[in-house]
């Protein structure tokens, strides 16, 4: 059942993108697409943006990993939680925040970086720095401090000890984190579309423009294949880096973190200032911009305007209506994703051997970009299936969102499910419990926390989902992220102001969902 679901909603659309790009007109036509105006530029821009975004995330993430994981100080946990927030924020909210920051009248308007590559790179770093910090930090915290001391007693300065001993030990974690960040950066869509507009184009946004402006589905499919190649390269890099990790590690687990010393404090402070600049400044800029009205004053006008429809040319419904659409579709997506997660995780953990690969397929949407998923669904599912005409129904939107949210939801549930001793279930069965009763009295009781947690994450992801949704949503039924992107891209102070206010609304809503979900997680931990 979950296999069929994944086949229809993920594998089939993906295969269609491949077939559509390669077949029919032949490889000559595919090559023609690659050299058509704008496309080589988009390829270069994608590589440059991904490279700079990854480099920036590493440069800030590694010192942050040291300050947040290797040395201990009061209030560290709070800062760790704050640093994790950007990763789960919707892309359009982040794009709006950096747009507000670098806009001509924004906090950093003097830098002249409005709609520039640099602004996009900053937003990408904002998103991904937490990945590097967490992955490298947990590896750093487990390093034996003795190795570094050994280097110091052999005459190495702090810097030489870091370079020759600590860095090689961190290399596998660093490589894995960088590969994942490279993947996220090269498949980033919302940030590039909103911040770069038509000026800075990547493969992702080019796919979008081919579909929405030129209705050229063949060109879009060819670009979709290019994107798949990018993803495969990044994933290959990631698994290569992981192999290195197994080779170097193998040692015992230990806690190598230590209380911060007086000598550490200036460095910790410097890292905190850098993080605050990166994370807090855009948030403040977004909030300020959402309150600003034409003429320069500040009021709630933009927020009040969210209740009225801005006019059919821009948005056929009010922003509040779009937000309600989002809540409903994301709710449905969370239910679908939750059920699918339970099914996939059960198959992966306890199913027969042949069912184990489901886990891998369910991870697919994490690697394949949301845009390619959306494109594939547009190409395949825009028709009547089993008597249901998906074209005129809005069902495609929650289905797409559920597929995008599935990988993270599965990743949350699988470890929790693995932690349940199979003998526990055997014991229940030997006491005469039917499979259903075993599930109800054991699995559900032990797993309802993690299940709620993964559904909550799916809900938050679906609320902010932009890439796939932008391909399958109907124009008269936009979701909140789509409404924000449209408002920000249209001229007119009124529209843009509303866009920023709507972005604050979405940011707060997603943040609230994540916080509630996180509370669930801590409660679950307390239970166990």
């Amino acid at each position, binding site marked *: 059942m979950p296999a069929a679901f994944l086949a229809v909603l993920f594998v089939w659309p993906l295969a269609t993108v491949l077939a559509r790009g390669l077949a029919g007109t032949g490889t000559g036509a595919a090559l023609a697409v690659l050299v058509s105006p704008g496309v080589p530029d988009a390829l270069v821009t994608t590589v440059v943006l991904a490279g700079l975004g990854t480099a920036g995330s590493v440069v800030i993430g590694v010192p942050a990993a040291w300050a947040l994981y290797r040395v201990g100080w009061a209030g560290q946990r709070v800062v760790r939680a704050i640093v994790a927030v950007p990763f789960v924020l919707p892309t359009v909210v982040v794009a709006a925040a950096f747009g507000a920051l670098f806009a001509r009248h924004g906090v950093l308007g003097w830098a002249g970086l409005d709609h520039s590559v640099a602004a996009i790179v900053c937003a990408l770093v904002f998103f991904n720095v937490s990945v590097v910090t967490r992955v490298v930090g947990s590896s750093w915290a487990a390093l034996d401090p003795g*190795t570094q*001391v050994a280097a*110091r*007693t*052999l*005459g190495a300065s702090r810097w030489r000890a870091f370079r*020759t001993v600590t860095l090689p*030990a961190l290399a596998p974690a660093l490589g894995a984190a960088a590969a994942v960040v490279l993947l996220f950066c090269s498949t980033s869509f919302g940030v590039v579309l909103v911040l770069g507009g038509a000026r800075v184009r990547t493969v992702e946004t080019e796919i979008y423009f081919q579909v929405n402006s030129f209705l050229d589905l063949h060109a879009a499919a060819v670009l979709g294949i290019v994107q798949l190649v990018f993803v495969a390269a990044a994933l290959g890099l990631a698994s290569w880096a992981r192999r290195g990790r197994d080779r170097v590690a193998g040692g015992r687990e230990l806690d190598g973190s230590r209380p911060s010393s007086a000598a550490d404090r200036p460095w910790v402070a410097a890292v905190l200032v850098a993080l605050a600049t990166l994370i807090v400044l855009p948030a403040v800029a977004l909030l300020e911009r959402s309150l600003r009205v034409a003429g320069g004053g500040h009021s709630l006008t933009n927020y009040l305007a969210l209740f009225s429809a801005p006019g059919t040319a821009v948005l056929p419904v009010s922003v509040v209506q779009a937000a309600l659409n989002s809540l409903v579709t994301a709710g449905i997506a969370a239910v679908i994703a939750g059920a699918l997660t339970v099914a996939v995780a059960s198959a992966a953990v306890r199913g027969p051997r042949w069912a184990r690969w489901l886990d891998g397929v369910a991870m697919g949407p994490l690697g394949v970009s949301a845009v390619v998923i959306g494109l594939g669904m547009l190409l395949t599912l825009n028709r009547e299936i089993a008597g249901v005409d998906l074209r005129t129904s809005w069902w495609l939107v929650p289905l797409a969102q559920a597929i995008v949210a599935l990988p993270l939801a599965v990743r949350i549930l699988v470890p929790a499910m693995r932690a349940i001793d199979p003998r526990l279930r055997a014991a229940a069965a030997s006491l005469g419990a039917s499979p259903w009763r075993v599930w109800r009295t054991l699995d559900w009781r032990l797993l309802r926390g993690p299940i709620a947690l993964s559904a909550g994450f799916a809900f938050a992801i679906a609320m902010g989902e932009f890439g796939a949704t932008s391909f399958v949503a109907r124009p008269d039924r936009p979701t909140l992220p789509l409404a924000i992107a449209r408002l920000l891209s249209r001229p007119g102070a009124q529209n843009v102001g509303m866009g920023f206010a709507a972005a604050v609304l979405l940011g707060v809503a997603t943040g609230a969902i994540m916080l509630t979900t996180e509370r669930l997680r801590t409660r679950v931990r307390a239970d166990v």
Partner: protein
Amino acid sequence: MSGLVVSQVSVTYRGRETVTAVDGVSLSVAKGEIVALLGPSGCGKSSLLAAIVGIVEPTAGTVAFDDEDVTQTPIHERGFGLVFQDGQLFPHLSVGGNVAYGIHALPRGERECRVAELLHLVGLEGLAHRAITELSGGQRQRVALARSLAPRPRLLCLDEPLSSLDAELRERLADDLRDVLTASGTTALMVTHDPSEAARVASRTLRMEAGRLI
């Protein structure tokens, strides 16, 4: 006075409760002497060693070598070597790479000669290109010893260097350790909880209990 002079050194750890691990200890090690610091686990002997090497900052007292106060000198400028209980070999370097780590400033030919000389001294000649993971526990401690001796430290500190090995190997390696230290004329201070090990290796034994010398 030449050699190591430790005066009134105290080490306290601040936490929920303040723990005084070393309480005003004074000792000296003359040049070429091998001294053992013997005591039960938790008596503060490793903390004292850490303060001498510079891993922890003493809350009071001074550490001097050849009449030069090194209490505030960073670890890598003290010229004190340290052999760890668990070796702490660099996992990404070969045996030769580990031994050469502290003498990287020497020209290449000289460096290779010194590595070969030290591997010969600890009985591991010809193993310079081995990976660390291919060594037995006893071989690892020999590499750790060679690595610490390579930069010719003016004082070599050893923190339970043999206690991670099994009993038979420990006795044999204790004799080898004494021979190597004597042959290289190294001034050494060894921390151990094993009286027979102290007797085998050291020329003089100090006893420590509850943070003080007795």
